[in-house]
């Protein structure tokens, strides 16, 4: 009933990516997801969309990024597909390894995994699926004054 769904394709442009990011966040806000859930989703979306635009499509304006968004009362599920050559996520070095601490790279995927319930790469690394289960409320916000 209150599900929020949309699909969109856009050229490799980080400004367009920001707009899509805001649209997804608006979907979550409309179903009153917590600030913490939204914080995690915004970070994960930023990393995933920038990866698709920059590393996947190589900023090629002739290539597009394809996003599908499904947000309901229990979870947000976002699929992001680029038109690049793909990659093997297992090849990305561990950024927390002592030898890699000062090197760039690998932190985006790591942050996505930390803040999402599930992060799945498929189609040779061209597609990433982000799933965030709604945080369980610890306070009973439905309590009514006497």
């Amino acid at each position, binding site marked *: 009933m209150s599900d929020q769904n949309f699909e969109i394709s856009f050229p490799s442009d980080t400004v367009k990516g*920001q707009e899509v990011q805001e649209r997804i966040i608006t979907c979550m806000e409309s179903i009153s997801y917590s600030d913490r859930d939204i914080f995690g989703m915004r*970070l994960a979306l*930023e990393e995933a969309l*920038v990866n698709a635009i920059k590393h996947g499509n190589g900023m090629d304006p002739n290539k597009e990024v394809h996003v599908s968004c499904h947000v309901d009362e229990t979870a947000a599920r976002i699929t992001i597909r680029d038109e690049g050559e793909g990659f093997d996520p297992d090849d990305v070095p561990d950024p927390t390894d002592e030898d890699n*601490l*000062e090197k760039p790279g690998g*932190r985006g995927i790591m*942050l996505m995994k930390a803040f999402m319930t599930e992060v799945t790469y498929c189609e040779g690394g061209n597609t990433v699926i982000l799933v965030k289960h709604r945080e369980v409320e610890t306070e009973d916000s439905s309590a009514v004054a006497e």
Partner: protein
Amino acid sequence: MSAGSTRRVEVEEIGDVSVARFVDKKILDETNIQIIGNQLVALVDEDARKKIVLDFSNVEYLSSAALSKLLILEKKAKAAGAKLRFCGIRPDIYQIFTLTKLNKLFDIYDSEDQALEGL
């Protein structure tokens, strides 16, 4: 482009320390990150500041691209013999530093006063 000259970091001189405060709440946008990175590196490379405190009090979001810029700044500062300290990082953002273990690499303090102390 006028956006290229927009100041994204405000710098205040407190004694011999340069305190740099982020203007933006979200350090996500690629263009802003580039401008911020350039302004911070200029403190070391062009202005030859030897003591820098970076105040994150205003920052609500931070991406891995921003972390990479901070790493560059840290390397530049170390190479130039400058001291660099961070402060005012809210818990959500601090979690990003702990997850990536960059809290071990950067010199992080709770408050600006603590960061200034003994610098």
